Protein backbone atom coordinates (compact mmCIF):
# COMPACT_ATOMS: atom_id res chain seq x y z
CA UNK A 1 0.00 0.00 0.00
CA UNK A 2 1.41 3.39 -0.95
CA UNK A 3 1.70 6.35 1.40
CA UNK A 4 -0.93 8.30 -0.51
CA UNK A 5 -3.17 5.25 -0.16
CA UNK A 6 -2.74 5.21 3.62
CA UNK A 7 -3.85 8.82 4.00
CA UNK A 8 -7.51 7.90 3.31
CA UNK A 9 -7.96 5.45 6.22
CA UNK A 10 -6.02 7.77 8.56
CA UNK A 11 -8.27 10.68 7.61
CA UNK A 12 -11.31 8.42 8.14
CA UNK A 13 -9.96 7.67 11.62
CA UNK A 14 -9.74 11.40 12.30
CA UNK A 15 -13.38 11.80 11.30
CA UNK A 16 -14.41 8.96 13.64
CA UNK A 17 -12.48 10.59 16.51
CA UNK A 18 -14.07 13.97 15.87
CA UNK A 19 -17.50 12.34 15.79
CA UNK A 20 -16.84 10.60 19.14
CA UNK A 21 -15.67 13.92 20.63
CA UNK A 22 -18.84 15.64 19.42
CA UNK A 23 -21.08 12.91 20.85
CA UNK A 24 -19.30 13.11 24.21
CA UNK A 25 -19.86 16.89 24.35
CA UNK A 26 -23.54 16.50 23.42
CA UNK A 27 -24.01 13.91 26.18
CA UNK A 28 -22.25 16.05 28.80
CA UNK A 29 -24.22 19.18 27.90
CA UNK A 30 -27.46 17.25 28.23
CA UNK A 31 -26.36 15.93 31.64
CA UNK A 32 -25.58 19.46 32.86
CA UNK A 33 -28.88 20.79 31.56
CA UNK A 34 -30.98 17.96 33.02
CA UNK A 35 -29.92 19.04 36.53
CA UNK A 36 -32.07 22.15 36.12
CA UNK A 37 -35.35 20.29 35.75
CA UNK A 38 -37.28 23.31 34.51
CA UNK A 39 -40.97 22.95 33.75
CA UNK A 40 -42.65 23.48 30.39
CA UNK A 41 -43.11 27.13 29.55
CA UNK A 42 -40.66 28.20 32.23
CA UNK A 43 -37.37 27.76 30.50
CA UNK A 44 -36.01 31.26 31.03
CA UNK A 45 -33.34 30.27 33.50
CA UNK A 46 -32.22 33.64 34.71
CA UNK A 47 -35.79 34.72 35.40
CA UNK A 48 -36.73 31.52 37.19
CA UNK A 49 -33.67 30.29 38.93
CA UNK A 50 -31.32 33.22 39.17
CA UNK A 51 -27.90 32.13 40.38
CA UNK A 52 -28.44 28.44 39.52
CA UNK A 53 -28.72 29.37 35.87
CA UNK A 54 -25.49 31.35 35.95
CA UNK A 55 -23.71 28.35 37.52
CA UNK A 56 -25.06 26.05 34.81
CA UNK A 57 -24.03 28.43 32.04
CA UNK A 58 -20.55 28.46 33.57
CA UNK A 59 -20.42 24.65 33.57
CA UNK A 60 -21.51 24.63 29.92
CA UNK A 61 -18.90 27.19 29.04
CA UNK A 62 -16.14 25.21 30.82
CA UNK A 63 -17.17 21.96 29.14
CA UNK A 64 -17.12 23.64 25.73
CA UNK A 65 -13.68 25.12 26.38
CA UNK A 66 -12.45 21.61 27.23
CA UNK A 67 -14.17 20.24 24.10
CA UNK A 68 -12.32 22.78 21.99
CA UNK A 69 -8.99 21.74 23.52
CA UNK A 70 -9.78 18.02 23.07
CA UNK A 71 -10.74 18.54 19.43
CA UNK A 72 -7.56 20.47 18.74
CA UNK A 73 -5.51 17.71 20.35
CA UNK A 74 -7.35 14.97 18.37
CA UNK A 75 -6.95 16.90 15.13
CA UNK A 76 -3.27 17.56 15.87
CA UNK A 77 -2.47 13.90 16.62
CA UNK A 78 -4.33 12.68 13.55
CA UNK A 79 -2.72 15.29 11.31
CA UNK A 80 0.66 14.05 12.48
CA UNK A 81 -0.37 10.43 11.78
CA UNK A 82 -1.62 11.38 8.30
CA UNK A 83 1.64 13.14 7.47
CA UNK A 84 3.60 10.12 8.74
CA UNK A 85 1.40 7.79 6.67
CA UNK A 86 2.16 9.77 3.55
CA UNK A 87 5.82 10.42 4.22
CA UNK A 88 6.68 7.27 6.14
CA UNK A 89 5.89 4.94 3.25
CA UNK A 90 5.82 6.99 0.08
CA UNK A 91 5.57 5.27 -3.31
CA UNK A 92 9.17 4.61 -4.32
CA UNK A 93 8.70 6.38 -7.64
CA UNK A 94 7.69 9.69 -6.10
CA UNK A 95 10.34 12.36 -6.09
CA UNK A 96 11.24 14.31 -2.94
CA UNK A 97 9.41 17.36 -4.35
CA UNK A 98 6.17 15.39 -4.59
CA UNK A 99 6.60 14.03 -1.07
CA UNK A 100 7.02 17.61 0.14
CA UNK A 101 3.86 18.62 -1.76
CA UNK A 102 1.84 15.78 -0.21
CA UNK A 103 3.17 16.87 3.19
CA UNK A 104 2.03 20.43 2.47
CA UNK A 105 -1.46 19.35 1.43
CA UNK A 106 -2.01 17.30 4.58
CA UNK A 107 -0.49 19.95 6.88
CA UNK A 108 -2.61 22.70 5.35
CA UNK A 109 -5.81 20.70 5.80
CA UNK A 110 -4.84 19.70 9.36
CA UNK A 111 -4.29 23.35 10.21
CA UNK A 112 -7.75 24.10 8.79
CA UNK A 113 -9.33 21.50 11.09
CA UNK A 114 -7.62 23.05 14.11
CA UNK A 115 -8.76 26.54 13.03
CA UNK A 116 -12.35 25.37 12.57
CA UNK A 117 -12.53 24.02 16.13
CA UNK A 118 -10.78 27.00 17.68
CA UNK A 119 -13.21 29.37 15.89
CA UNK A 120 -16.25 27.31 16.93
CA UNK A 121 -15.15 27.20 20.55
CA UNK A 122 -14.88 31.03 20.60
CA UNK A 123 -18.32 31.44 19.02
CA UNK A 124 -19.97 28.96 21.38
CA UNK A 125 -18.49 30.66 24.43
CA UNK A 126 -19.75 34.01 23.12
CA UNK A 127 -23.26 32.55 22.64
CA UNK A 128 -23.28 31.21 26.21
CA UNK A 129 -22.03 34.55 27.56
CA UNK A 130 -24.83 36.34 25.67
CA UNK A 131 -27.32 33.92 27.23
CA UNK A 132 -26.05 34.68 30.75
CA UNK A 133 -26.18 38.46 30.36
CA UNK A 134 -29.47 38.69 28.48
CA UNK A 135 -31.32 36.00 30.42
CA UNK A 136 -32.34 34.28 27.16
CA UNK A 137 -34.18 31.00 26.87
CA UNK A 138 -32.33 27.79 27.67
CA UNK A 139 -33.86 26.08 24.62
CA UNK A 140 -32.49 28.77 22.30
CA UNK A 141 -28.98 28.53 23.75
CA UNK A 142 -28.98 24.72 23.49
CA UNK A 143 -30.23 24.94 19.89
CA UNK A 144 -27.54 27.53 19.02
CA UNK A 145 -24.77 25.40 20.53
CA UNK A 146 -26.06 22.28 18.84
CA UNK A 147 -26.22 24.00 15.40
CA UNK A 148 -22.70 25.36 15.88
CA UNK A 149 -21.39 21.91 16.87
CA UNK A 150 -23.03 20.36 13.80
CA UNK A 151 -21.61 22.94 11.42
CA UNK A 152 -18.18 22.73 13.08
CA UNK A 153 -18.19 18.99 12.61
CA UNK A 154 -19.27 19.40 8.97
CA UNK A 155 -16.51 21.95 8.31
CA UNK A 156 -13.87 19.75 9.94
CA UNK A 157 -15.09 16.80 7.88
CA UNK A 158 -14.96 18.89 4.68
CA UNK A 159 -11.35 19.85 5.46
CA UNK A 160 -10.38 16.20 5.99
CA UNK A 161 -12.25 15.10 2.84
CA UNK A 162 -10.53 17.82 0.81
CA UNK A 163 -7.19 16.39 2.01
CA UNK A 164 -8.17 12.85 0.92
CA UNK A 165 -9.25 14.06 -2.54
CA UNK A 166 -6.20 16.29 -2.99
CA UNK A 167 -3.74 13.53 -2.06
CA UNK A 168 -5.48 11.12 -4.50
CA UNK A 169 -5.33 13.62 -7.37
CA UNK A 170 -1.71 14.53 -6.57
CA UNK A 171 -0.65 10.86 -6.68
CA UNK A 172 -2.07 10.44 -10.22
CA UNK A 173 -0.51 13.72 -11.40
CA UNK A 174 2.88 12.75 -9.94
CA UNK A 175 2.91 9.51 -11.95
CA UNK A 176 2.01 11.49 -15.08
CA UNK A 177 4.88 13.91 -14.45
CA UNK A 178 7.33 10.96 -14.40
CA UNK A 179 6.06 9.84 -17.83
CA UNK A 180 6.37 13.37 -19.24
CA UNK A 181 9.96 13.45 -17.95
CA UNK A 182 10.57 10.26 -20.01
CA UNK A 183 9.66 12.27 -23.11
CA UNK A 184 6.06 11.12 -23.65
CA UNK A 185 3.83 14.20 -23.81
CA UNK A 186 0.46 13.97 -22.05
CA UNK A 187 -2.50 16.29 -21.82
CA UNK A 188 -4.92 16.48 -18.88
CA UNK A 189 -8.66 16.18 -19.47
CA UNK A 190 -10.88 17.92 -16.89
CA UNK A 191 -13.58 15.34 -16.09
CA UNK A 192 -16.72 15.64 -13.99
CA UNK A 193 -20.29 16.81 -13.79
CA UNK A 194 -21.72 19.76 -15.71
CA UNK A 195 -24.55 21.29 -13.72
CA UNK A 196 -25.75 24.46 -12.06
CA UNK A 197 -23.40 23.89 -9.11
CA UNK A 198 -20.20 24.19 -11.17
CA UNK A 199 -17.82 26.94 -10.10
CA UNK A 200 -16.86 29.34 -12.94
CA UNK A 201 -13.46 27.61 -13.25
CA UNK A 202 -15.08 24.17 -13.53
CA UNK A 203 -17.79 25.38 -15.94
CA UNK A 204 -15.08 26.85 -18.18
CA UNK A 205 -12.80 23.79 -18.27
CA UNK A 206 -14.96 20.68 -17.84
CA UNK A 207 -14.77 18.48 -20.97
CA UNK A 208 -11.58 20.17 -22.21
CA UNK A 209 -7.94 19.11 -22.14
CA UNK A 210 -4.99 21.27 -21.08
CA UNK A 211 -1.24 20.92 -21.36
CA UNK A 212 -0.26 22.04 -17.86
CA UNK A 213 -2.82 22.34 -15.04
CA UNK A 214 -0.14 23.65 -12.65
CA UNK A 215 -0.16 26.98 -14.50
CA UNK A 216 -3.91 27.49 -14.08
CA UNK A 217 -5.65 29.62 -11.47
CA UNK A 218 -8.95 28.55 -9.88
CA UNK A 219 -9.37 31.90 -8.10
CA UNK A 220 -9.40 30.14 -4.71
CA UNK A 221 -5.69 30.36 -3.94
CA UNK A 222 -5.48 26.56 -4.05
CA UNK A 223 -3.26 24.39 -6.20
CA UNK A 224 -5.31 23.40 -9.30
CA UNK A 225 -3.55 20.04 -9.76
CA UNK A 226 -4.58 18.86 -6.29
CA UNK A 227 -7.80 20.76 -5.55
CA UNK A 228 -9.22 21.31 -9.11
CA UNK A 229 -11.88 24.05 -8.68
CA UNK A 230 -11.48 24.33 -4.87
CA UNK A 231 -12.61 22.61 -1.69
CA UNK A 232 -15.20 19.84 -2.21
CA UNK A 233 -14.69 19.99 -5.98
CA UNK A 234 -16.25 16.93 -7.66
CA UNK A 235 -13.99 17.06 -10.74
CA UNK A 236 -10.80 15.16 -11.60
CA UNK A 237 -7.80 15.40 -13.91
CA UNK A 238 -7.34 12.48 -16.32
CA UNK A 239 -3.81 12.22 -17.79
CA UNK A 240 -4.27 11.27 -21.47
CA UNK A 241 -2.09 10.56 -24.51
CA UNK A 242 -2.41 13.31 -27.11
CA UNK A 243 -3.56 10.81 -29.76
CA UNK A 244 -6.32 9.55 -27.46
CA UNK A 245 -7.49 13.08 -26.58
CA UNK A 246 -7.66 13.99 -30.29
CA UNK A 247 -9.44 10.79 -31.32
CA UNK A 248 -12.03 11.26 -28.55
CA UNK A 249 -12.70 14.82 -29.77
CA UNK A 250 -11.40 16.89 -26.84
CA UNK A 251 -10.26 20.47 -27.48
CA UNK A 252 -6.72 20.90 -26.19
CA UNK A 253 -5.51 24.20 -24.71
CA UNK A 254 -1.97 25.38 -24.10
CA UNK A 255 -2.09 26.84 -20.59
CA UNK A 256 1.45 28.20 -20.65
CA UNK A 257 0.10 31.33 -22.36
CA UNK A 258 -2.45 33.80 -20.99
CA UNK A 259 -5.18 33.48 -22.10
CA UNK A 260 -4.91 29.77 -22.84
CA UNK A 261 -4.60 29.03 -26.57
CA UNK A 262 -6.52 26.33 -28.46
CA UNK A 263 -3.83 24.12 -30.04
CA UNK A 264 -6.05 21.23 -31.12
CA UNK A 265 -5.51 21.82 -34.85
CA UNK A 266 -1.74 22.26 -34.47
CA UNK A 267 -1.48 18.98 -32.58
CA UNK A 268 -3.70 17.19 -35.09
CA UNK A 269 -1.45 18.35 -37.94
CA UNK A 270 1.64 17.22 -35.97
CA UNK A 271 0.10 13.77 -35.38
CA UNK A 272 -0.85 13.40 -39.05
CA UNK A 273 2.64 14.53 -40.13
Amino acid sequence: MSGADLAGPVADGAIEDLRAAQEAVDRDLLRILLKLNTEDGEDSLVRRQGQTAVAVYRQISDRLAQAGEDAISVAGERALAAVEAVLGAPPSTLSLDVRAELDQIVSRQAADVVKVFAGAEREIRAAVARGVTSGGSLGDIVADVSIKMRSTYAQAQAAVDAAIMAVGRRAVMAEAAIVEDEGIPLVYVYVGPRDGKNRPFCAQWVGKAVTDPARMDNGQGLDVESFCGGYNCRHSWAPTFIAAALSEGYSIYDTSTTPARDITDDLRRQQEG
Partner: protein
Amino acid sequence: MGGITVTKSPKIPRFNGPGIAALIKAAVPGNIIRRTGRGVDMNGRQFAAYSRRYLRQLKRMGEDLTVDLRMSGGMINSIKARGAEVTGNRVVITIAPDTGTSPQYRAPSERRALRQAGLVEGRFGQQAVYRTLTRKEGKAMQKSLAYEQAGARKIDTGRRGPQHNILAHYLHYGTSKLPARPFLGLTPEETKMLFDEIRKIMWR
Protein backbone atom coordinates in the same frame (compact mmCIF):
# COMPACT_ATOMS: atom_id res chain seq x y z
CA MET B 1 49.70 -6.83 -44.63
CA GLY B 2 49.11 -4.23 -41.96
CA GLY B 3 45.76 -2.88 -40.85
CA ILE B 4 43.52 -1.89 -38.02
CA THR B 5 41.21 -4.30 -36.32
CA VAL B 6 38.00 -2.76 -34.98
CA THR B 7 36.06 -4.70 -32.39
CA LYS B 8 32.47 -3.56 -31.92
CA SER B 9 30.54 -4.93 -28.98
CA PRO B 10 26.82 -4.75 -29.74
CA LYS B 11 24.57 -2.85 -27.29
CA ILE B 12 21.98 -5.31 -26.15
CA PRO B 13 18.65 -3.57 -25.64
CA ARG B 14 17.26 -3.98 -22.13
CA PHE B 15 13.63 -4.38 -21.14
CA ASN B 16 12.44 -0.98 -19.82
CA GLY B 17 10.29 -2.30 -16.95
CA PRO B 18 10.29 0.86 -14.81
CA GLY B 19 9.40 3.03 -17.83
CA ILE B 20 6.49 0.76 -18.81
CA ALA B 21 5.28 0.69 -15.19
CA ALA B 22 5.31 4.49 -15.02
CA LEU B 23 3.41 4.70 -18.33
CA ILE B 24 0.69 2.30 -17.17
CA LYS B 25 0.38 4.01 -13.76
CA ALA B 26 -0.10 7.38 -15.43
CA ALA B 27 -2.32 6.45 -18.36
CA VAL B 28 -4.70 3.76 -17.12
CA PRO B 29 -6.33 5.66 -14.20
CA GLY B 30 -6.78 8.63 -16.59
CA ASN B 31 -8.42 6.34 -19.17
CA ILE B 32 -10.86 4.92 -16.62
CA ILE B 33 -11.73 8.34 -15.18
CA ARG B 34 -12.26 9.88 -18.63
CA ARG B 35 -14.34 7.06 -20.11
CA THR B 36 -16.48 6.66 -16.98
CA GLY B 37 -17.14 10.42 -17.06
CA ARG B 38 -18.59 9.97 -20.57
CA GLY B 39 -20.92 7.23 -19.31
CA VAL B 40 -19.18 4.43 -21.28
CA ASP B 41 -18.17 1.07 -19.77
CA MET B 42 -15.02 -1.00 -20.36
CA ASN B 43 -16.69 -2.82 -23.26
CA GLY B 44 -17.35 0.44 -25.08
CA ARG B 45 -21.10 0.33 -24.31
CA GLN B 46 -23.18 3.01 -22.55
CA PHE B 47 -23.73 2.29 -18.85
CA ALA B 48 -27.12 0.92 -17.82
CA ALA B 49 -29.40 3.89 -17.08
CA TYR B 50 -30.01 4.99 -13.49
CA SER B 51 -33.37 4.00 -12.03
CA ARG B 52 -36.18 6.55 -12.22
CA ARG B 53 -36.10 6.85 -8.43
CA TYR B 54 -32.37 7.62 -8.36
CA LEU B 55 -32.75 10.12 -11.22
CA ARG B 56 -35.46 11.92 -9.21
CA GLN B 57 -33.08 12.07 -6.25
CA LEU B 58 -30.26 13.45 -8.43
CA LYS B 59 -32.60 16.12 -9.78
CA ARG B 60 -33.57 17.14 -6.24
CA MET B 61 -29.87 17.39 -5.42
CA GLY B 62 -29.28 19.62 -8.49
CA GLU B 63 -26.78 17.08 -9.87
CA ASP B 64 -25.76 16.25 -13.43
CA LEU B 65 -27.89 13.30 -14.63
CA THR B 66 -25.14 11.59 -16.70
CA VAL B 67 -24.46 8.00 -15.56
CA ASP B 68 -20.89 8.68 -14.45
CA LEU B 69 -20.80 6.75 -11.13
CA ARG B 70 -19.88 10.00 -9.40
CA MET B 71 -21.51 11.80 -6.47
CA SER B 72 -18.80 13.49 -4.38
CA GLY B 73 -16.14 12.26 -6.82
CA GLY B 74 -14.30 10.53 -3.96
CA MET B 75 -14.38 6.99 -5.35
CA ILE B 76 -13.47 7.96 -8.94
CA ASN B 77 -10.74 10.29 -7.68
CA SER B 78 -9.18 7.55 -5.61
CA ILE B 79 -8.52 5.27 -8.62
CA LYS B 80 -4.77 4.97 -8.89
CA ALA B 81 -1.87 2.50 -8.98
CA ARG B 82 -1.94 0.65 -5.67
CA GLY B 83 0.81 -1.85 -6.36
CA ALA B 84 3.65 -2.44 -8.81
CA GLU B 85 5.79 -5.50 -9.47
CA VAL B 86 8.59 -5.00 -11.96
CA THR B 87 10.99 -7.85 -12.81
CA GLY B 88 13.47 -8.40 -15.64
CA ASN B 89 10.80 -9.27 -18.20
CA ARG B 90 7.46 -8.62 -16.49
CA VAL B 91 5.42 -5.69 -15.22
CA VAL B 92 2.33 -6.15 -13.02
CA ILE B 93 0.47 -3.02 -11.96
CA THR B 94 -2.60 -3.09 -9.70
CA ILE B 95 -4.97 -0.22 -10.39
CA ALA B 96 -7.92 0.19 -8.06
CA PRO B 97 -9.79 2.66 -5.85
CA ASP B 98 -8.35 3.10 -2.34
CA THR B 99 -9.83 1.98 0.97
CA GLY B 100 -10.91 5.45 2.14
CA THR B 101 -14.54 6.59 2.37
CA SER B 102 -16.54 9.64 1.28
CA PRO B 103 -19.43 11.49 2.94
CA GLN B 104 -22.91 10.12 2.34
CA TYR B 105 -25.46 12.55 0.88
CA ARG B 106 -29.23 12.58 0.55
CA ALA B 107 -31.74 14.62 -1.43
CA PRO B 108 -34.05 17.09 0.29
CA SER B 109 -37.37 15.38 1.05
CA GLU B 110 -40.62 16.88 2.29
CA ARG B 111 -41.84 13.39 3.10
CA ARG B 112 -38.97 13.05 5.54
CA ALA B 113 -40.18 16.13 7.47
CA LEU B 114 -43.70 14.66 7.62
CA ARG B 115 -42.36 11.32 8.78
CA GLN B 116 -40.29 12.98 11.50
CA ALA B 117 -43.45 14.64 12.78
CA GLY B 118 -45.21 11.26 12.89
CA LEU B 119 -47.38 12.07 9.86
CA VAL B 120 -46.51 9.04 7.79
CA GLU B 121 -48.44 8.78 4.58
CA GLY B 122 -49.32 5.47 2.95
CA ARG B 123 -46.59 3.57 4.76
CA PHE B 124 -48.50 0.54 5.99
CA GLY B 125 -51.27 0.69 3.45
CA GLN B 126 -53.01 3.71 5.01
CA GLN B 127 -54.16 6.47 2.70
CA ALA B 128 -53.28 9.16 5.23
CA VAL B 129 -52.59 9.58 8.92
CA TYR B 130 -54.40 12.32 10.79
CA ARG B 131 -52.76 13.53 13.94
CA THR B 132 -52.98 16.72 15.93
CA LEU B 133 -49.58 18.20 16.62
CA THR B 134 -48.79 20.15 19.79
CA ARG B 135 -47.58 23.70 19.31
CA LYS B 136 -43.97 22.59 19.91
CA GLU B 137 -44.27 19.71 17.42
CA GLY B 138 -45.89 22.05 14.90
CA LYS B 139 -42.99 24.50 15.21
CA ALA B 140 -40.43 21.72 14.81
CA MET B 141 -42.25 20.40 11.73
CA GLN B 142 -42.45 23.89 10.20
CA LYS B 143 -38.70 24.30 10.69
CA SER B 144 -37.85 20.89 9.29
CA LEU B 145 -40.20 21.42 6.31
CA ALA B 146 -38.56 24.77 5.53
CA TYR B 147 -35.15 23.05 5.63
CA GLU B 148 -36.28 20.32 3.23
CA GLN B 149 -37.87 22.87 0.87
CA ALA B 150 -34.84 25.19 0.66
CA GLY B 151 -33.99 24.34 -2.95
CA ALA B 152 -32.16 21.58 -4.80
CA ARG B 153 -29.00 20.58 -2.96
CA LYS B 154 -27.05 17.67 -1.50
CA ILE B 155 -27.55 17.25 2.25
CA ASP B 156 -24.66 15.67 4.14
CA THR B 157 -26.14 12.91 6.32
CA GLY B 158 -23.11 13.00 8.65
CA ARG B 159 -22.52 9.31 7.87
CA ARG B 160 -19.77 7.90 5.66
CA GLY B 161 -20.35 5.74 2.60
CA PRO B 162 -18.74 2.30 2.11
CA GLN B 163 -15.02 2.05 1.40
CA HIS B 164 -14.20 3.19 -2.13
CA ASN B 165 -12.89 -0.24 -3.21
CA ILE B 166 -16.03 -2.03 -1.94
CA LEU B 167 -18.32 0.53 -3.57
CA ALA B 168 -16.41 0.10 -6.84
CA HIS B 169 -16.81 -3.70 -6.60
CA TYR B 170 -20.61 -3.37 -6.29
CA LEU B 171 -20.79 -0.86 -9.14
CA HIS B 172 -18.55 -2.96 -11.39
CA TYR B 173 -20.18 -6.37 -10.83
CA GLY B 174 -23.67 -5.22 -9.79
CA THR B 175 -25.92 -6.78 -7.14
CA SER B 176 -29.39 -8.31 -7.18
CA LYS B 177 -30.82 -4.77 -7.24
CA LEU B 178 -28.06 -2.93 -9.08
CA PRO B 179 -27.11 -3.53 -12.74
CA ALA B 180 -23.43 -4.25 -13.41
CA ARG B 181 -21.60 -1.22 -14.79
CA PRO B 182 -18.12 -2.61 -15.55
CA PHE B 183 -15.76 0.36 -15.51
CA LEU B 184 -12.47 -0.87 -14.01
CA GLY B 185 -10.73 -1.90 -17.21
CA LEU B 186 -9.84 -0.77 -20.72
CA THR B 187 -11.74 -1.05 -24.00
CA PRO B 188 -9.94 -2.92 -26.84
CA GLU B 189 -9.16 0.46 -28.51
CA GLU B 190 -7.72 1.85 -25.28
CA THR B 191 -5.63 -1.30 -24.82
CA LYS B 192 -4.29 -0.99 -28.38
CA MET B 193 -3.39 2.67 -27.87
CA LEU B 194 -1.63 1.82 -24.58
CA PHE B 195 0.38 -0.96 -26.27
CA ASP B 196 1.32 1.43 -29.11
CA GLU B 197 2.80 3.81 -26.54
CA ILE B 198 4.47 0.99 -24.59
CA ARG B 199 6.12 -0.26 -27.79
CA LYS B 200 7.83 3.13 -28.19
CA ILE B 201 9.66 2.79 -24.86
CA MET B 202 9.76 -0.99 -24.41
CA TRP B 203 13.51 -1.34 -25.03
CA ARG B 204 16.25 1.06 -24.06
